[in-house]
């Protein structure tokens, strides 16, 4: 019995944390699914979101989660502009060009953040940052629960959008067969712009929830990008259920790895899982 109670804490924390990783991974997954581009600037964009929230928190006193009401539209529009003026030309040239441009965007963002806010790490500190709730003998930080709830809400909204709106179905169709989508009257340029805008909206949401959970600095985006890759490889592309399961596995691997093997396990076990899945089922657990 003690064994079970001992594991209960890392399991619950791992699952909740997995929610955060799902939100981080969704933006990357969307862009790759629709535009077939690996957006290596995604991690930097998420951290940009964390810093944007930091700005409105420290300068305007607005709670980061509430601040999303302003931040989401701003990032969405920014995403459309980045796609329209930077990425679109690169995507037309080649996949390599798009990769390089995305990398350049990441570098610019990372260095701009460093200049504006210094390399020292920051945090989104709110009244509830230190709160925990107690279930039996387990203590769960409130922010972890918020992360998980955010993941559920985001997944639900995206799913409804993709399934129930013409635009959402157009994006889905274009990601499966771009040329035929054109024959339906779907303008692929417009689809790409909306998809990238959505990806940036997801990035700022991920940035806010990451920022209330962990401290961050200008280089944090790199680790996030790698986590996002891990989640997507585990769960497979093209399936939101897959991304969710991938996130859960990643989070659990971290906490259970840390529980059994210490800090090294926390870093290593998730990526061992990724390697295992890559070997036995390369398309991911739910990939097509």
């Amino acid at each position: 019995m003690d064994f079970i109670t001992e594991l209960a804490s890392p399991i619950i924390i791992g699952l909740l944390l997995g929610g955060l990783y799902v939100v981080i991974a969704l933006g990357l997954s969307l862009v790759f699914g629709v535009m077939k581009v690996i957006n290596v600037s995604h991690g930097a964009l998420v951290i940009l979101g964390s810093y944007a929230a930091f700005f409105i928190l420290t300068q305007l006193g607005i709670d980061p989660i509430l601040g999303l009401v302003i931040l989401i539209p701003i990032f969405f529009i920014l995403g459309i502009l980045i796609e329209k003026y930077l990425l679109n030309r690169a995507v037309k040239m080649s996949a390599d060009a798009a990769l390089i441009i995305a990398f350049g965007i990441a570098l610019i963002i990372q260095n701009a953040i460093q200049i504006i806010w210094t390399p020292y790490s920051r945090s989104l500190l709110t009244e509830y940052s230190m709160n925990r709730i107690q279930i039996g003998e387990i203590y769960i930080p409130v922010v972890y629960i918020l992360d998980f709830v955010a993941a559920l809400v985001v997944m639900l909204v995206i799913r409804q959008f993709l399934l129930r709106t013409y635009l959402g179905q157009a994006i889905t169709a274009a990601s499966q067969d771009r040329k035929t989508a054109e024959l339906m009257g779907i303008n692929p340029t417009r689809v790409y712009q909306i998809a990238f805008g959505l990806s940036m909206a997801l990035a700022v949401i991920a940035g806010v929830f990451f920022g209330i959970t962990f401290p961050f600095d200008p280089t944090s985006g790199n680790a996030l990008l790698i986590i996002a890759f891990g989640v997507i490889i585990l769960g497979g592309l093209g399936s939101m259920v897959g991304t969710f399961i991938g996130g859960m596995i990643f989070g659990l691997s971290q906490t259970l790895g840390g529980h059994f093997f210490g800090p090294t396990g926390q870093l290593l076990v998730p990526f061992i899982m990724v390697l295992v899945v890559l070997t036995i089922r390369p398309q991911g657990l739910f990939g097509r």
Partner: protein
Amino acid sequence: MTDEVFLRVNNIETYYGSLQVLWEVSLEVKRGEIVAIAGANGAGKSTLMNTICGVLHPARGSIEFENKNITHLNAYDIVSLGISQIPEGRRLFPEMTVLQNLMIGSYDRNARANKEKNLARVYELFPILKERKNQIAKTLSGGQQQMVAIGRGLMSNPKLMIIDEMSLGLSPLIVSDLFRVLQEIRERGIAILLVEQNVWQTLHEADRAYVIETGRIVLAGNALDLLEEEEVRNAYFGT
């Protein structure tokens, strides 16, 4: 059925890079007609279809639909004018259901208003699609996929449907059924431009036909007359 010509292709020449594929190709389609383009594999039929639908653009010549010049329009703009292309190989959205594939056919703003009515018509023509509306497209048989492809094309409220190699990979029985549906579609006033390797059956179903060989139109006329033509019989039927 009026005699009005509404699609006019005038002397188009299309290239793949520097390779010329179509030479001085001209054809017409009148309202409510079924026109066939027959030719062997590689004769240029698909290139011709892709050029008319805006997937490719001709280097020379013009294409007019209802007196509008559509030569350089993009594929996604041509749908709203009333031309629907059923591409070669069906090309359904593989992970989407039958219903989703049909509904995305009504994406065009002009078609959205009629989506319920058009869907009912599609189910009338293909009752099996209603039974299988939640089935994932890639799990359907070839014949069923072709039904969805035609149904999806109908959802955009077209005046002209361009169907590329409908009979490819399908059994003669299924192809006959599909041709019956095409006749019903024609009864509703929709013109059909058909591209086929299956010359024999096609010439029995179409009103007029063109024969294309290595990128040129070599014969044109009433379908039944062409069936009797010496050249056609020699080339395609070995008689």
